């Protein structure tokens, strides 16, 4: 009995039905087994079937799919033989689920506490009062703020990281023997991810529950898993102990995944020594936000404060920060979608009109925006050819055969076959859509493209190919790029210059070489330190996200450091009283960056 695995899946097949009514397997031949207390990671790209497999361990298949064969055993229960009522008895009781996006997996109309204690209530495991006491204990263990009262809140009043931890509390309220975690940190910022991972590791795994962890991120999995199963197109490519998969992968596909997870550093193309003309794009003292502009010159909801940046011809500027830091707002200001409250945007030394109204068609043509989500940015009713021909007619007046030839050229440029020209957008894969999205911007023959998180919604392998393409385009066409991302390793790999944004202020700017060696601004340090490394034990060793030292109440100066509440290097009596100066870091030979901080080279190094 004791050496019998706790969870065992054998010969699992899940089928789906296509519109023609034929069934086809989406997952097949899946075998794995876990001992009690072990963590198994299912890893693969979207469409690999990892979530489908994870859900079968709850006896669940999404609408349209059916568990068609094989055996799924959890403890003494054979899930494929249970009816709906018996499955409902297991779910949320002995087997718990933690969903990918807690923000949408919590019911928006009910309080957190109501939902957290619900599993214990429906399975009649304890009284409401006892369940609430247990929930508060779990909130405390998961390091949630205000554990005694957070339950009275509604989901929209909490952050994504908090909701993800609350979802863990909801899963653990019944002390389940098996926990299914479905990409629980994918939707989070890297700095939040590390906190959530720590909370999961401390609470979920150390209570002895067996766990199945679904992820596309090998580095995250390295922190959590004992065993790894690599999936592709619904089949197992490689399975084994975590250390073996991470350090000696046997399968080609696993190696591809590993390579894509570590973007290669690209050389900066040599710049032609142009005479000191005006930079291509310059932003001077821009402050922008939403709502009416008040007496102090700030909008009611300020997003950006005093932004200055320049992009040279053919240069690449990376803008990084967490969600809500104002990254996308910079692109919106440059494109004219959001007129700044004060400050100027200059193109080729000429000030641009602040809003869309005053801009000429030529000015529109020279600046093109590439949106994050190609699914929603491209009209699904149009074909690839129509989408690319539209800017050609609008900006260059190209029609008929000339336009057709140019569309073919563009398709060639983005490495898509010409046969796709009549294909509808809906018939393309995510990566192909993003290429078309890029080509639509290139069709205008711009001088600068603003790329807003263009690889964030893509799988790592596909995203790496898009980055490769962008580097080629830059070499061939000499187009300048502003690359907005939350991922510092991507930005460091492809950008010449980097701007780190925190809460709408620039905290550090400099050439990318300055971001390779310490010292950094404390926030940059946190960002870099939060990126998981592909080795076990990193999570325990990383100092990122450590509790900041205690500090007195902050003064009321409007220009105080905005990172103060989270800063690990804050100094009482200085940081909470005096606004930080902007000054240069020396960094020896590595190149200099400018930071907004009281600290200098010497005092930042020990970080």
């Amino acid at each position, binding site marked *: 009995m004791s050496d019998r695995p706790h969870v065992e899946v054998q010969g699992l097949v899940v089928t789906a039905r296509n519109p023609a009514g034929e069934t086809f397997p989406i997952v097949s031949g899946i075998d794995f087994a876990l001992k009690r207390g072990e963590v198994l990671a299912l890893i693969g790209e979207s469409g690999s079937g990892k979530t489908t497999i994870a859900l079968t361990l709850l006896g669940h298949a999404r609408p349209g799919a059916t568990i068609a064969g094989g055996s799924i055993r959890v403890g003494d229960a054979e899930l494929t033989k249970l009816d709906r009522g018996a499955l409902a008895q297991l779910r949320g009781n002995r087997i718990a689920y933690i969903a990918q996006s807690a923000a949408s997996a919590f019911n928006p109309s009910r309080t957190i506490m109501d939902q957290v204690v619900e599993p214990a209530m429906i*399975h009649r495991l304890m009284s409401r009062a006892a369940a609430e006491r247990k929930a508060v204990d779990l909130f405390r263990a998961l390091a949630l703020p205000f554990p005694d009262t957070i339950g009275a809140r509604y989901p*929209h009043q909490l952050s994504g990281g908090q909701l993800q931890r609350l979802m863990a509390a909801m899963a653990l309220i019944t002390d389940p023997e098996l926990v299914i975690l479905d990409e629980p940190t994918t939707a989070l910022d890297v700095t939040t991810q590390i906190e959530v991972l720590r909370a999961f590791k401390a609470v979920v795994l150390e209570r002895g529950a067996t766990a199945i962890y679904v992820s596309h991120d090998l580095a995250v999995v390295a922190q959590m898993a004992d065993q790894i199963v690599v999936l592709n197109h619904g089949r197992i490519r490689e399975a084994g102990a975590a250390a073996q998969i991470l350090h000696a992968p046997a399968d080609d596909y696993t190696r591809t995944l590993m390579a894509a997870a570590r973007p290669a550093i690209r050389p900066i193309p040599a710049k032609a020594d142009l005479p000191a003309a005006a930079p291509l794009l310059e932003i001077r003292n821009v402050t922008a936000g939403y709502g009416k502009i008040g007496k102090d010159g700030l909008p009611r909801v300020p997003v950006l404060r005093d932004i200055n940046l320049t992009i040279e011809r053919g240069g690449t500027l990376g803008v990084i920060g967490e969600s809500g830091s104002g990254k996308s707002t910079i692109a919106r200001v440059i494109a004219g979608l959001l007129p700044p409250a004060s400050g100027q945007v200059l193109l080729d030394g000429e000030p641009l009109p602040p809003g869309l109204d005053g801009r000429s068609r030529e000015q529109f043509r020279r600046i093109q925006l590439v949106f994050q989500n190609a699914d929603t940015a491209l009209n699904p009713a149009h074909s690839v050819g129509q989408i690319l021909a539209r800017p050609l007619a609008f900006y260059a007046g190209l029609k008929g055969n000339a336009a057709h030839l140019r569309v073919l050229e563009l398709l060639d440029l983005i490495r898509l076959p010409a046969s796709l020209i009549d294909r509808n957008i809906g018939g393309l894969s995510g990566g192909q859509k993003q290429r078309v999205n890029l080509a639509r911007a290139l069709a205008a023959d711009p001088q600068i493209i603003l790329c807003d998180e263009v690889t964030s919604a893509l799988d790592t392998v596909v995203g790496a190919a898009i980055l490769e393409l962008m580097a080629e385009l830059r070499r061939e066409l000499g187009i300048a790029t502003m690359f907005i991302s939350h991922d510092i390793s991507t930005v460091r790999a492809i950008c010449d210059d980097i701007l780190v944004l925190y809460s709408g202020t620039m905290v550090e700017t400099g050439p990318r070489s300055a971001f390779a060696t310490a010292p950094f601004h404390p926030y940059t340090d946190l960002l870099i330190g939060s990126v998981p490394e592909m080795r076990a034990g990193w999570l325990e060793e990383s100092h990122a996200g450590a509790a900041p030292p205690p500090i007195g109440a902050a003064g009321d100066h409007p220009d105080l450091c905005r990172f103060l509440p989270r800063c690990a290097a804050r100094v009482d009596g200085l940081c909470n009283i005096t606004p930080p100066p902007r000054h240069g870091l020396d960094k020896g030979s590595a190149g200099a960056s400018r930071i907004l901080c009281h600290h200098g080279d010497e005092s930042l190094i020990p970080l």
Partner: protein
Amino acid sequence: MAGASSQSGMKAALTLTTQRFASSLLTLLLVSVTIFVIAQLLPGDAAQEALGQSATAEQIAALRHEMGLDRPAYVRYADWLGGMVSGNPGQSMVANMPVAEVIAERLPNSLLLAALTALVAVPVALAIGIGSAMNRGGRIDRALNIATLSMVAVPEFLVATIAVLIFSVKLRWLPSIALVSDDMTWGEYLPGVAMPILTLSVVVIAQMARMTRAAVIDQMDRPYVEMAVLKGVAPVQVVLKHIMPNAIAPIVNAMALSLSYLLGGAVIVETIFNYPGLASLMVNAVTSRDMPLLQACAMIFCAAYLLLMLIADVTAILANPRLRAQ
């Protein structure tokens, strides 16, 4: 902290509700202007109507002066609006008695019919809508779909005629005419109004059931519903406890729209069953050009419509924690 936030939430909900109420009042005021202006644009006036074809211009002018009709329009508007507010919307010219009395005789009948119909139709519509949403794509869903679609498509005079044919002529269960008097008991009243209620229900149930189904299905694919299923919540509880709080706002909205039809739109049913309601009164007022009565009826229908919309909006505000807490 939680107490404070829920308190501020209630305060915010109150502010929103007050704003919504004020805008309803403003709408009603604008409607009253529109009704008054349209009544003025119609040819002829009360003096002309009272004196008939043979009256001389001097006689008409004298009567106009006596009735106050020669005063400027805004004065007459203010006068009329003041009368409406204080419960005296003027004198009905055809019945030759105060409009308030004419309406007082009919309004309770209309309200009772509407209320009884709502009492039957709302639960049935909810059951049909939720039932077919839960069996989405299944046999029950398709059967209910066909049933509700054909109910929407069949005009109510046909439903009423068929009902009379079956229940009065063939089966002789129910009277074909709805007689109503003040001293009737419920036992006498209900059989008389059964067929009007049935006919009106058929129309509104179909609309409401389809909207309920759409609102529930709209929520069914959300991740929180899958989460509830994976917590082991039973299917009926998933709908009642998880989906309904989020679907209630569009459902109540659709119901308010459908139910607003029960007052003004009941004219065909009232005519067929000879039911003494407000809608047929208004139609009579139009044919006899009884302007004060017509204006008063129009204002009542409009106020009822706005009241239902107000209820729907307030429900939406109370059901949505985001609106409550902003």
